[in-house]
């Protein structure tokens, strides 16, 4: 990286501002690329940590009966798996990609608030360190599910819930600061000529996502604070015996939780919208409608939260409202899928690893969208709710959805970051193992869910045995395939075929005009966008 910086003389005075030496480079850095790198490695570590927990869960579910772990530890594993994957793996990975790519895509020299950027990142290791250490306490880790419904998470919670609340507060602060930084950067640091409607879609989707984060993370902070008050300060927000309301918890939680779902998918929409045009060698179909569709999805995400609560006994009118509003989401989401397919139509496609992951994203995310449409039908949801059908649904949108989007983005930009092409055969091998693994794991879950297996149970009736065994095999294939990814990443960072500046034949945009690897400082002088 240092040599690349030195050899790059476009930026005059800045060329000698290489990174500092040693560990303090990473602790004190305000460089968007360093911080992006740290976010990405952190989320990868969290992905593996949460993945191990998922494999423990799947191993226990391989056969009926309790074999490996006890029910109380099982509940800790499912809870921690969910929390770590949502808040530790998916969200920080997107922030990492935003840190790296948003300034490069809009022609900005760095993020607008670089010191805050450093702080946003460095909160995270402490938040997750605190959450993970509860596993080693006598009370055990949180065991009430990642949705932590009261009163299971208040009156009946293990004492580690207080650390969990503190951890959630820290993650929330980190996310809000990260989001503010992205908004401020996009609004203020665009290069001359880079109008809003010329911004790459990844920037657009992140812009909208950042507003969602600023809007809902405080709601999450509110709900955990109410829990804290109930547990330690004698209030009864969620305690029926004290005049409180357990259903209030769910309303507040899902008012955060549903936009949160889109926080985890909108940036992936953006990544896929960058990749498909590149490898189809054809401009994105319907750029403007993509922007409007993303905005519509973001707006609708605020008025559909109670579809997670169809069985809590809402009044009929509320039930109908939330059913209709939820069904509406299918329309803008459909627009996006149709646009991606139209982009491919009459293109000139090649199938490098980022494109493979992006294509798998389109197909498998759409399958997750279909099951989402099924779940929106409230009467049918009375049968689907809290079964493995739901588990299948949200894993389809989060694993081959959000996670494949992230992986596609990493492959796509990796040559720009490292200056080397990755090994294409190894990348394809990683893709096919992941693709097979993910489907073998999650597709059978549709069947066992419809057949009546509830979620979050450590042991199950005998009729569910076969599909559970298959799902476990798939989970191990998928889990271990990610080690191929780790190996490939390290190999590519260390060396490999030298990447060109444009990297991909069909790539367009400011990030492909700078050298590969990207110098430590870029766009010290703003480029002009025509």
């Amino acid at each position, binding site marked *: 990286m240092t040599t690349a910086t030195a050899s790059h003389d476009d930026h005059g005075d800045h060329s000698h501002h290489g990174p500092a030496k040693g560990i303090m480079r990473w602790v004190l850095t305000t460089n968007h690329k360093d911080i992006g790198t740290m976010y990405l490695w952190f989320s990868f570590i969290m992905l593996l940590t949460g993945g191990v927990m998922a494999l423990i869960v799947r191993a226990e579910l391989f056969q009926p009966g309790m074999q490996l772990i006890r029910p109380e530890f099982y509940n800790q594993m499912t809870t921690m798996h969910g929390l770590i994957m949502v808040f530790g793996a998916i969200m920080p990975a997107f922030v990492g990609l935003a840190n790296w790519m948003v300034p490069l895509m809009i022609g900005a020299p760095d993020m607008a608030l670089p010191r805050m950027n450093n702080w946003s990142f460095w909160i995270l290791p402490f938040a997750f360190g605190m959450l993970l250490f509860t596993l080693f306490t006598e009370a055990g880790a949180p065991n009430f599910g990642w949705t932590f419904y009261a009163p299971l998470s208040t009156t009946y919670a293990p004492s580690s819930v207080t650390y969990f609340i503190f951890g959630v507060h820290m993650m929330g602060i980190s996310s809000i600061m990260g989001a503010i930084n992205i908004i401020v950067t996009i609004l203020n640091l665009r290069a001359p000529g880079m109008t809003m409607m010329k911004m790459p879609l990844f920037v657009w989707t992140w812009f909208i996502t950042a507003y969602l984060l600023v809007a809902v993370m405080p709601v999450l902070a509110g709900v955990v604070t109410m829990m804290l008050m109930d547990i330690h300060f004698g209030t009864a927000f969620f305690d029926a015996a004290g005049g409180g309301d357990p259903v209030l918890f769910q309303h507040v939680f899902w008012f955060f939780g549903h936009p949160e779902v889109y926080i985890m998918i909108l940036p992936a929409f953006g990544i896929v919208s960058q990749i498909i045009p590149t490898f189809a060698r054809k401009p994105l179909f319907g750029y403007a409608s993509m922007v409007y569709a993303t905005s519509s999805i973001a707006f609708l995400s605020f008025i559909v939260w109670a579809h997670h609560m169809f069985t809590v006994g809402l009044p009929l009118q509320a039930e109908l409202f939330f059913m209709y509003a939820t069904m509406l989401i299918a329309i803008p989401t459909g627009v996006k899928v149709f646009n991606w397919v*139209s982009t491919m139509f009459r293109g000139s496609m090649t199938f490098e690893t980022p494109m493979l992951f992006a294509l798998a994203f389109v197909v498998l995310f759409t399958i997750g969208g279909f099951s989402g449409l099924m779940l929106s039908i409230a009467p049918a949801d009375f049968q689907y709710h809290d079964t493995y059908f739901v588990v299948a649904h949200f894993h389809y949108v989060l694993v081959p959805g959000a996670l494949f989007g992230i992986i596609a983005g990493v492959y796509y930009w990796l040559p720009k970051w490292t200056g080397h092409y990755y090994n294409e055969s190894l990348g394809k091998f990683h893709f096919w193992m992941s693709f097979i693994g993910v489907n073998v794991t999650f597709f059978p879950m549709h069947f066992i869910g419809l057949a009546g297996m509830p979620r979050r149970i450590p042991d199950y009736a005998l009729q569910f045995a076969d599909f559970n065994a298959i799902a476990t095999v798939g989970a191990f294939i998928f889990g271990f395939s990610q080690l191929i990814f780790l190996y490939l990443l390290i190999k590519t960072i260390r060396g490999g075929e030298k990447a060109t500046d444009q990297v991909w034949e069909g790539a367009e945009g400011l990030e492909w005009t700078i050298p590969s690897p990207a110098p430590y400082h870029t766009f010290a002088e703003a480029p002009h966008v025509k």
Partner: protein
Amino acid sequence: MFFRTWQRLSSVVLGLVLAPAAMADWGLNMPQGITEVSQSIFELHMLIFWICVWIGVVVFGVMFYSIFKHRKSKGAVASKFHESLGLELLWTAVPTVILIAMAVPATTVLIQMYDTTNSDVDIKVTGHQWKWQYDYLGEDVGFFSNLTTTDDEIYNRTEKGENYLEEVDNHVVVPTGQKIRFLITSNDVIHAWWVPEIAVKKDAIPGYINESWALIPEGQEGIYRGKCAELCGVQHGFMPIVLEAVTADEYQVWLDDQRAGKVAEAAAAQGDFSYDELMVEGAAVYARSCAGCHGTEGQGMGSIFPALAGSSMALNDMAGHIDIVLNGKPGTAMQSFSAQLTDVEIAAVITFERNAWGNDTGETVTPKMIIDAKK
């Protein structure tokens, strides 16, 4: 009905790939269930499923056509088109129409599901960690329903029975041909009472009484199994529901038997029991009602559920011991057992706890002492 015809048409076309009948046989699909509501839900489910399949066929069809035809290796040259107002309006409008068509039958079914009026039988269902309580309102019949699958089966020390994890001691018995209203609530955390065959799933929430209903047609007598669907703690996977539908006449006989049984139990509590009798009974009650939290050897669980072996209450404080079993400890998972267990069972289990696992107090707690403590 339009939807049925449409569904059948779709089934024929795609039948070779995924026949719905075969899916039902292999336990791949939602059960059609035995009530009108459950069958309406099944139809909605299949309708939306086939809509999704058809949209998928079209969208993925175009996508894979492009992938095979418009690839660079086949010499495809990219065209430059990137918008089409007409096309974009079309694929906004068509899904809107499909969704409205879908919303109409869904609304009808939902309205039907919410109509809990004019019920013939009212059953209050109360969730507890980790068992269900049923009270037949106005009938003076009520009981708890506990899992009967043994720890030996769960921990693989013996072979698993046919209804592994789906069997309970007391079935919730309901008559066919009558509208049954379930009033669902909880005593501690949130549970959810779910029997797929009658398509009733409703959260049991402390402080709320949720309503749901089912009308099982005559001729559909039988046993239908369900489960708790909302994470409710450690034993969430171990609190099933067994619904037994019987004819209206059999139902009346069953109610009478239940009432007679209660009278007999009360009379039995007045009798004398030896230490040995109480210990045998107590061990069985302990395994069923206490071991879930306090451990099979009275060792407790984590920091939440205290050990009974060697506990000062079990060794020294008999009055306190009787009190906590009868009345529970508010704000903790320790429930009141005065309604869950008979006086004989309570006496037996306390005797057992005070003498098992090296507690050796030698004390006997008799059913009469329990009756006195309740006064």
